């Protein structure tokens, strides 16, 4: 029993990580209606920028990270204007496919620039032994991830729930034409969302790289679990993204210690299929109402 409890606790830790990746995807989806498949490569690119500032420019990590965050925010805005905005009326499916293409392009660029010597050992932001709960040790970096995930979730939830900007984001996603007629600056809002999404990605990349090792394909394995988590929790719900991701983490880790690693993946996707069949909007998502 102790082993299962330990596996569940470690599952919460890894689930929080999946949830953090999911925040950026959910935020963009809530704001623009687009599922961004380039989120993983944007995160990795941001981590590589911070890495290059440390290794090439000789900056300390804590100085490199803010610069990388600013750079990635600007890059997110550029991505919006160059990749997303042209012929934006082509529809969400078209835009979603563009994000897939962007992901492949960024992956190729990173392989070309940094791929030969990857993976790289990435410096941790915090040092220390961490804490032990049951028989599982939660390293200091894992605790940092949990803390940052909580802070980001609260900030984003407050942004969408209480601020005028958040309301504008939601209006733009749900009724883009009406929102424009009401005078919302759609271009500016969408660009800001892409910038914020890229910044969130860089935060995730920098936090993940010490344990996953920095490489162009670092996020590939994580994205599968992340998308499962956010669909499970509800694509439009930030708390849902976190809840779904934590469930994925717990279920997969307990299944792994009970059966095998393959069973961990199988159980997660079985749950995903059941939820999509029974409750397509996810655990905390809202069912879309269509006015006839």
């Amino acid at each position, binding site marked *: 029993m*102790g*082993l299962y409890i*330990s*596996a569940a606790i*470690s599952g919460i*830790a*890894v689930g929080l990580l999946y949830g953090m990746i999911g925040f950026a995807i959910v935020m963009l989806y809530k704001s623009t209606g687009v599922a961004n498949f380039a989120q993983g490569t944007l995160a990795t690119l941001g981590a590589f920028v911070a890495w290059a500032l440390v290794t090439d420019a000789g900056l300390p990590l804590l100085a490199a990270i803010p610069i990388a965050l600013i750079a990635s925010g600007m890059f997110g805005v550029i991505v919006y204007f160059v990749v997303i905005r042209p012929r934006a009326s082509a529809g969400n499916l078209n835009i979603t496919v563009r994000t897939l293409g962007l992901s492949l392009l960024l992956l190729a660029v990173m*392989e070309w620039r940094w*791929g*030969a*010597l*990857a*993976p*790289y*050992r990435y410096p941790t932001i915090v040092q220390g032994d*961490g804490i032990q709960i049951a*028989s*599982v*040790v939660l*390293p200091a970096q894992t605790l940092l991830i949990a803390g940052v995930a909580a802070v980001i979730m609260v900030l984003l939830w407050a942004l969408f729930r209480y601020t005028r900007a958040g309301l504008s984001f939601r209006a733009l996603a749900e009724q883009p034409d009406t929102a424009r007629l009401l005078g919302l600056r759609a271009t500016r809002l969408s660009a800001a969302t892409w910038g914020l999404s890229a910044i969130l990605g860089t935060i995730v990349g920098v936090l993940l790289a010490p*344990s*996953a*090792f920095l*490489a162009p*394909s670092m996020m*590939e*394995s*994580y994205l599968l*679990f992340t998308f499962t988590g956010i669909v499970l929790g509800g694509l439009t719900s930030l708390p849902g993204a976190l809840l779904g991701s934590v469930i994925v983490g717990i279920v997969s*880790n307990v299944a*792994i*210690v009970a059966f*095998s*690693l*393959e069973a*961990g993946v199988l159980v997660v996707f079985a749950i995903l299929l059941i939820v999509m069949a029974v409750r397509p909007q996810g655990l905390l998502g809202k069912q879309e109402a269509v006015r006839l």
Partner: protein
Amino acid sequence: MRIAFNRSAKLAGAGAAVALALALGACSGGSPGAGGETSGGAVAEVGVTADTIRLAASQTLSGPGAASCAPSTDAAQLYFDKVNDEGGVDGRKIDFEVLDDGYDPQRALANVRGFIDSKFAMVGACGSATAAAIYRTLSDAGMPFLFPTNGVAEVVKPASPGILQLLPLYEDQTASMVRYGFEEFGSGSIFVVVNPLGEYESAISRAREVAESGGGSFVDSAVAQLGTTDYTPIALQIKEADPDFVVMSMGGSDSAKFVNALVDQNALPRSAVLGTSASVAGSFLSSYNTAASDKVYFGSAIQLPPSAENECTQLLAGGDFANDPIALIGCASAQAIVEAIRQTPELTRANLLATIESWDEEDISPGIFAPVSFSATDHIGLKTLYVVQPQGTEFGVIAECPYSEDENADASCTPAG
């Protein structure tokens, strides 16, 4: 008028037939593996001209295994470039083409089918699954497949014509490493963790057989896909099982993730972590937690650090792959291929294979590979497995073990130096 037309048509038809016959004749003269003679008496072979020898590789250049694999063909390319800069092999330059297969057996097979009629030989690359997918096609075509990094027994046991590898199979390596661990620390319990590299079930079963026959016990095993995101659950299982040894056969990055999870969870075994040559990679060195150094012992196909006198050591020094064992293996394998070509009097595929099968204690890459021996029935060249430990950013040899496929052979290892 009509008669004249028919005569013209017949003449045209006859001309076309002659042209077709000439064309077919020209084509058949260059058929794959023909090894026939040209009008000048010189032996003609696919991929060999008066001034060029065309070699190729299908390599994992994308996906989770790319970081570990790519340096081997990159380093081989460096060596071939060096040979070309020095005038080539008997005046012939080496043209080396590498295509990405993403560790996908079907892509590897497609790559190979494109090479058979235009390249002289395949240079081995990473990937047991890909090697297993392509070896029959290569063997049937008579195209040499020289020195793949392969863990699937059927590729080389029994010996397939044209398929020769240097590295011992992972199943034999896990067996050797368990023997070494028991010699050093006394017999005990083992927990085996593998990535699906080659026939991983046999790597587990051989480790189990050797442990049980050596007075130890088998606790459990786990199979993890390459690129697994979180090894914590397996580390927790090992912590609960509390074995004396953890035996692993995993890729470089995954080895580092796994060892780091063992350190994080205070789950390192009492005696040692014993691994195969799959872990001996730059991607392990760049990423592992050094707190585990004292307990980690890997089998290695090459001497580490390599001799400073070796051309490959000098070639890679100061470059991107200076400390990468995979790059050293790639470069030293290229050395072996060039040496085999040099020793082959009339360069045909059959003659090249005969040259390599005649090697007995051949020192193909002194200071990197131990001497290699092949025969018509034995297509695994190395008979020595080095035991190495990570020491900072390098591996260092601490023992040499005679490698043998014979389970009953004397497996006593000797300390290095």
